[in-house]
């Protein structure tokens, strides 16, 4: 059974699940429930099979690579190559896919009758198929096919709720940015093809010496921009906060948790595997973009009061943290300090895994809340914990994990990233050291601000009193949603506490690369799950911390509750409000909560604050009836880079439209001029 899984038939069977799922849901379009059942069950079976295949490949360490059929044109060779890294990503995709599909069964119900469920099922399965193709593709051409199938399928998922006009606009911006990114990637593959005469990654890797240094730098810049657009690094991120919220929640969880990681997957494969050896400045660029993306990502998240946009900005922040790990790994490889490079690569992979888990948990729980309250604006929420206790608990777990609080997995991967940055600070070269110091500084501030942002998000959404009537009608979501979220929360805790076991496996995966084949590892895992780095420089253990914490919590609980004095009475009264009657308006709003931080960082964010005051009587304008404050953040990128670019292109196109002036004589003179010019060139 083991051999069957980690073999070509296993991988092809994996694709067939989603293929059948896609076709089936198209055929059963007429009956919503059947279409939903068919697409979800097929997706779930496909994901389970994906988990089996991935774990089989990871444990056996075998790399499965095989070609299929022969096409007329030589460049289209359908070849698969799934080594350890792609197995890890298959595992990631299948894990999140499984839980999102389980969540989807319940969630899709609210689309019954409004839209065509069969089409949703079709594009959902094609989307997962596209992502799996991307991570298993063996050559550049087949990778691009998978890449665009994934982008187009996700576009149709984003514009699925098409009666909402700004979903369509978000989808349009998404596909335009993705296509520009793909063009960059195609140019970089073409440049590689120019010197190595092949698109196959293995062939390129072995004949990388043929490619001159300047071309390799060009390929690096193009690939970083191309994959950066998909991953959403800061200057290229404008599509992410609009596109992810537009999709149905279980799809936006999948988009945010997995799709943006595919850009990282290809960066790792290209920079660490195919294009080795690499110069130093590559790593520095990736490190700096990571630092900037994480800091700006969290700052923009703080200004948001639309839940899903907030989570989308946090995806940018976490991608920045992953890039910190990857950047330091690139720097260490170029300095030939391979054990440290292995450490930071494991940190990057561990954070990719953790972020996929807790980000999809957050999106799913936000989705189930939005599903009940029917609005994404945080200001309308409040007190949801009394109506939807389970969703609130899962959102809390997600928030603790994303703000890297210890017992959960977020902390341990951020700890690993910290360790790789600390090792970087200990380097001798002064310029690199200061780069690592600034990166570590960015990471610390990001951690603090993320904590503030999620206190705001959780507090405003779930605690205190409802700010709108909608909230009081909310009921707890159905079972399938809870299972989806619950298992993700449990995973988040499990991967945190048993992080030692996970780090060991990730190291085995990172060893898949040729450069790390023989490097001795700086990470040792002791029996009590303690990860210690660089022979004792730093070591933590999730299990002991949790153990001590629960023990002491029990002791304190028992002593205080029963030991001291049992006969206290508990009187439930109203919150202290200096005597006035308690109105929902008195609670703090999301804008109010984040205003102090936004004003502190106003140099970067350039906020614009409008006050609207409505007076009792318009003449004297003395007694204000109501006052509203609107805190707006100008989108710096849109106004200074993308708008002028669009203006230039439209201007150019209007200029060329004058060719079609409508007059026959001018058309004939074009032909005459073309003839004369052509003749003069040769005579």
């Amino acid at each position, binding site marked *: 059974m083991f051999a069957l899984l980690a073999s070509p038939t296993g991988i092809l069977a994996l694709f067939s699940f989603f293929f059948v799922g896609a076709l089936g849901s198209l055929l059963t379009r007429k009956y919503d429930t059947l279409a939903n059942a068919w697409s979800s069950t097929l997706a779930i079976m496909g994901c389970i099979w994906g988990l089996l295949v991935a774990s089989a490949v990871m444990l056996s360490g075998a790399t499965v690579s095989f070609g299929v059929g022969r096409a007329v044109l030589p460049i289209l060779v359908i070849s698969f190559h799934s080594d350890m890294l792609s197995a890890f990503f298959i595992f990631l995709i299948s894990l999140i896919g499984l839980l999102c599909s389980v969540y989807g069964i319940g969630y899709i119900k609210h689309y019954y009758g409004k839209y065509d469920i069969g089409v949703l099922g079709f594009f959902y399965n094609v989307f997962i198929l596209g992502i799996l193709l991307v991570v298993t593709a063996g050559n550049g051409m087949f990778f691009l096919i998978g890449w665009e199938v994934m982008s187009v399928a996700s576009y149709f998922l984003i514009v699925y709720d098409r009666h909402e006009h700004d979903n369509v606009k978000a989808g349009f911006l998404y596909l335009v940015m993705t296509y520009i990114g793909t063009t960059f990637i195609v140019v970089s593959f073409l440049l590689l093809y120019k010197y190595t005469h092949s698109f196959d990654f293995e062939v390129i890797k072995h004949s990388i010496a043929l490619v001159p240094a300047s071309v390799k730098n060009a390929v690096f810049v193009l690939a970083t921009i191309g994959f950066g657009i998909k991953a959403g690094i800061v200057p290229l991120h404008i599509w992410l906060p609009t596109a992810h919220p537009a999709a149905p929640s279980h799809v936006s969880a999948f988009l945010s948790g997995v799709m943006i990681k595919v850009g990282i997957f290809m960066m790792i494969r290209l920079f660490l595997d195919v294009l080795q050896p690499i110069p130093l400045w590559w790593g520095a660029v990736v490190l700096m973009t990571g630092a900037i993306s994480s800091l700006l990502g969290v700052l923009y998240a703080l200004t948001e009061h639309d839940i899903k946009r907030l989570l989308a900005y946090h995806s940018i922040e976490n991608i920045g943290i992953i890039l910190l790990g990857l950047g330091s790994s690139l720097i260490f490889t170029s300095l030939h300090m391979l054990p440290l490079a292995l450490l930071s690569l494991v940190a990057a992979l561990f954070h990719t895994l953790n972020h996929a888990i807790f980000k999809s948990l957050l999106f799913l729980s936000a989705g189930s809340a939005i599903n009940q309250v029917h609005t994404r604006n945080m200001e309308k929420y409040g007190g949801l914990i009394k109506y939807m206790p389970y969703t609130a608990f899962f959102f809390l777990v997600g928030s*603790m994990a994303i703000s890297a609080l210890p017992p959960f997995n977020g902390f341990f991967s951020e700890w690993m990233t910290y360790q790789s940055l600390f090792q970087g600070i200990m380097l001798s070269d002064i310029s690199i050291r200061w780069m690592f110091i600034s990166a570590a500084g960015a990471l610390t501030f990001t951690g*603090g*601000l993320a*904590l503030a942002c999620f206190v705001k998000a959780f507090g405003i959404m779930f605690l205190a009193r409802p700010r709108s009537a909608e909230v009081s009608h909310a009921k707890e979501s159905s079972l399938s949603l809870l299972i989806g979220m619950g298992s993700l929360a449990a995973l988040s805790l499990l991967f945190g506490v048993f992080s030692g076991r996970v780090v060991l496996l990730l190291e085995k995966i990172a060893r898949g690369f040729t450069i790390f084949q023989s490097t001795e590892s700086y990470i040792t895992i002791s029996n009590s799950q303690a990860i210690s780095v660089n022979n004792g420089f730093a070591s933590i253990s999730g299990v002991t*911390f949790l153990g001590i914490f629960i023990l002491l919590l029990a002791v304190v609980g028992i002593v205080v509750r029963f030991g001291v004095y049992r006969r206290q009475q508990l009187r439930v*009264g109203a919150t*202290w409000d200096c005597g006035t009657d308690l109105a929902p308006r008195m609670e*703090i709003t999301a804008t109010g909560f984040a205003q102090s931080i936004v004003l502190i960082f106003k140099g970067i964010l350039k906020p614009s604050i409008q006050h609207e005051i409505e007076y009792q009587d318009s003449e004297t304008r003395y007694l204000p009836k109501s006052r509203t404050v609107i805190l707006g953040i100008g989108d710096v990128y849109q106004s200074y880079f993308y708008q002028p670019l669009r203006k230039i292109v439209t201007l150019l196109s209007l200029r060329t439209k004058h060719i079609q002036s409508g007059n026959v004589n001018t058309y004939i003179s074009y032909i005459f001029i073309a003839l004369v010019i052509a003749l003069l060139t040769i005579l």
Partner: protein
Amino acid sequence: MTSVVWILQFILTPALSPLCIGVIKKMKARFQNRVGASIFQPYRDLWKLLHKDETMSRDASWIFRFAPYIVFTVTLVVGASIPLFALFPSHIMSSDMLMIIYALAIGTFFLALAGLDTGGAFGGFGSSREMTLSALAEGGFVFSLLTIALMSGTTNVFSIAGSGVLAQGQYVLPVFLAFIGFFIVLLAETARFPYDNPATHLELTMIHEAMILEYSGKRLALMEWASANKLLIFSAMGANLFFPFGFAVSVDPQAIIMGIAILFMKLFVFCFVITLIESSMAKFRFFRLPDLLLISFILNAVALGLIYSL
């Protein structure tokens, strides 16, 4: 005998912290030349609060009810995993520098959520200000501990204290800068003077008090005790990590008592300095505090840079 040391390590923080608060209050009173309450008054207050009845807001959820237990336990766990009077209980796995910082962050997280939970105006503003300050202070906090960690080649708090590398005069300037940065962060995290006046309930300025405004009875006791513990943790870390002498070397009672005595003396110096600041300085306006925290961050970053260039 080691079990006694273990028990001592666990109970020393909760036991000593109200005393520190008492000593600070006594010295402040002396500075304002009034007699002031006895240094054991905090113990009596805690005992009284633990026995009083409790009132709770109708809107509060389970977070409001469990937050005090979580915040208090976090301070206990952190208190047990930092070097107090002896270095040998170092194999506790949770004494890594980042673990301590992020464990304290759990406390702040639940404290802020509890503040938000009751839906009053004060709690919300308190949490907002608290989160702003803790977000900005974290940079200085991590970097100050990182400086001494990189000097002593490990991030385990016990081994930093025991490494003794600070004793040789080589790193005096970076240690001094790091200590200044750390002390600024200490005042921020324990809501002491330039950031927040612990004695007042004035809506405009209070940060820490605003979050625990709604508590009463034994939950208020736990919260007060937790903030006292936090003060002790920070001053003990400041004392033992930056001035690492006078630790008990062996297990025999005589050395332990000497260790505890030296700890008392160090803490007293810290309390004196805090009281000195509280009595002499006015509380800063809220939007000048980020500049102060940024100074601490820059100081630590310079200290970090200095380590290797010497």
